[in-house]
């Protein structure tokens, strides 16, 4: 059977691909700079040239999302290929923007708004590039692999298990039950705080497990077994929260990046129309 992995050819490496695309990007930017210099040296207005290339690039960049939805279309390149184009064309738009505004800070209201939208989308793209390289490794480091949409169901399951353990243990002593109602019930039954979502850490997990272990001297043998199970569930719940925070960040970033892109495209078109309308006799 033929392997479908054309991208797994022996000669292929990510480093090689990065080098190739980076060189092409620099060459394209230099070419564009040369064209702008040529236009300006002939006292022509380069704004329409840079503007059209820029807005064309923005629409092309937005095309990645469309490509993802048309995964069944043949001969349009894989999503991975489009993503590489997206990254390098996206990076080159910084140079396009600079050439288009002629290295000055825009002064008109619409232009400032448009620039803000552009920088939000572009910088969120750079942030996305960073987090998509870093965060998957942090998720992989967690033992369990959890599908985002199933997290609420897992949370309920863990909460039910914790409740059952405590109910069974409280038949002989109420130490564990009281600790559960004071310290654990919200931890198990609710998602973590916004602060944790922004910056997840293992401090709560360490704290709770430490507190559970410290209860050992008040517990009998059976209840110690129950407390160890409870500590295991705390670790699982913390892993679950960690997945929610990290996967959530990966999703929210993309949502924001794509959402503002649409605004950027609309305002960019308005800007283009107005530029043409008010261009007058500019050569």
């Amino acid at each position: 059977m033929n392997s479908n992995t054309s991208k797994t050819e022996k000669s292929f490496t990510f480093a090689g691909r990065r080098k190739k695309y980076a060189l092409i990007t620099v060459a394209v930017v230099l070419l564009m700079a040369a064209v702008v210099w040529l236009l300006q040296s002939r006292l022509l207005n380069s704004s329409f040239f840079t503007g059209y290339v820029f807005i064309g690039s923005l629409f092309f960049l937005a095309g990645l999302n469309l490509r993802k939805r048309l995964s069944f279309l043949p001969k349009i390149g894989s999503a991975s290929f489009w993503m590489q184009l997206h990254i390098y064309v996206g990076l080159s738009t910084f140079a396009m923007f600079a050439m288009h505004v002629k290295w000055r800070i825009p002064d008109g209201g619409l232009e400032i708004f448009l620039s803000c939208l552009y920088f939000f989308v572009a910088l969120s793209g750079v942030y996305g590039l960073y987090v998509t390289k870093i965060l998957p490794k942090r998720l992989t480091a967690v033992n369990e692999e959890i599908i985002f949409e199933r997290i609420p169901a897992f949370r309920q399951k863990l909460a039910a298990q914790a409740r059952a353990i405590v109910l069974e243990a409280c038949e002989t002593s109420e130490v564990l039950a009281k600790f559960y109602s004071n310290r654990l019930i919200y931890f198990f039954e609710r998602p973590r705080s916004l602060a944790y979502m922004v910056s997840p850490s293992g401090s709560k997990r360490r704290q709770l497990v430490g507190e559970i272990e410290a209860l050992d001297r008040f517990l009998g043998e059976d209840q110690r077994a129950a407390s160890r199970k409870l500590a295991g569930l705390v670790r699982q719940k913390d892993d679950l929260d960690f997945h929610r925070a990290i996967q959530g960040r990966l999703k929210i970033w993309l949502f924001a990046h794509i959402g503002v892109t649409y605004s950027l495209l609309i305002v960019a078109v308005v800007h283009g129309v107005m530029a043409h309308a008010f261009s007058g006799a500019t050569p």
Partner: protein
Amino acid sequence: MPQSPTIIEKPQRWDQPLDPQLNDDIASRLIQLEPFALMDESAFSKNVPLRGILKNDCRLIEFNKGDIIVREGDYGSSAFLIVEGEALVSLKKIPQSVLGRDPVEPKSFMETIAQLWSNSKHSEARNFETGGAPKDDAIGERVDDGQTRIFLHDIPRVIPAGQSVKLHKGEIFGEISALTRTPRSATVVANTTTYILEIRWQGFRELLKRNDAMRLHIESQYRENSLRSHLREIELLKDLPQDSIDTISALTVFESYGSFEWNQNFQSTKQKDIAARVLSEPVIAQQGEYVDGLILIRNGFARLSRSRGDGQQTIAYLGKGQAFGLRELNHNWQTSQQRPWALSLRAVGYVDILKIPTSAVEQFVLPNVNSALLPPLFPEADMISNRRKVSRAQSLDQNLMEFLVGRRYINGSQAMVIDLDRCTRCDDCVRACASTHDNNPRFVRHGEKHDHWMIANACMHCMDPVCMIGCPTGAIGRSEETGIVSINDGTCVGCSTCANSCPYDNIRMVEINNAKGLPILAADHETPILKATKCDLCADQASGPACQNACPHDALVRIDLSTPDDMISVANR
């Protein structure tokens, strides 16, 4: 309180007979028939007597005229003996649709585009009109004693006169497929009311072992029909003169190790400690022992390992067509030394091997083969513990290799491997899969992990497709051209045989709905209609596997794990 162990009867080979209804009376009558009547019962062991084989390893099946007994391309582990009646072996290639399969044609451009709006809004929606019955009008379906049978309405229409061979009472068929785990080479149809004795491979092998005449007959058939061409396909032997091939063919020994039914106890085997698991694998060649021949893997997989402390360290794995022992044989031939096996070879699951004796290799192969094909000699020092140089495995992480072999992922020719260090869990792969399968994803982005690699629960289109054994309607089949294993939804009767057989849990049984999302029920108005579903590698899409194409981060690949090459390439990107 001290805990006492659970005491049960020691499990015996025949605790689960193939056909519980086959009693002593029927076995006594069968033993009167040829070829059993010609067998010497005293040649069989006390534990596995001939009568016991007939009673426990056999099943008597009645077929009506036109019933399909075996289909070309099916996998199976049984041979068949005609007890009464007559069967036709078709010499003509029968259309896939007649065999219950659905030849997959790639969608046209417009059909591809139409998926944007024509996919169902409901899960597992089916067109009720085509929900169950076979599509081809040449065949019919009936249920006989709980078994689904597919039959030809009109035999000559499908198998014209002169394009078939008749098999009569006492003749055996399907034995080569049963012994070598290869697809059936022809379709066999009952030509009258026919009684067939199905003999499962364990019993059939015992019969061959205890009956020289039968064994020699089967072996000579195999040597005559398949072995020579098989030997010719091997790189090392392909340029040898014909008379050398003939002699090698006559001297070659067939051996089998492990169990065909490896999938049945796979889940429990997987739980075992890896050291114990490796040591429990049948040894084909033992490190340090005398080299008695060149071993060629005919089917299945074998683990190459070397002793390390009290355990075995996996060095590589060998699959169909690969050879073991050439380096030792070449070394001994050129230096006149008697170097033993440098490594051990163990059966992973089951393995069929061909062994060409050392004398034949030295006389016919080594003097005539291109020296570029021969491996280098061993260095003088460190005779036995010298590590074998297996170039394919050089850069594959040792523990990853153990993981792939131990979990039998090496069976996968199109395994879905996800690099979790690159995967952003965006599920674009799942959405792409759904969009090409009427909004029903055909895999789960979940599976066993090793380090940052995940083997997702997606059909791997295995080299040894155990899921294909036992399908009563032939709905699950493998494409000869692409090797893709796919299920024909129209002829699947929802018996779950394939899903239960899949050792990797990659086939899901689903309850189907009509176009309005309401369940489709059987005539009793209660039983939901089930269908087996799995990844078909987007065989009907011109774009190829949508999952791989949709991954923007190069995290998901579909690769062949039957050799380490693809995995090495992916790991070294």
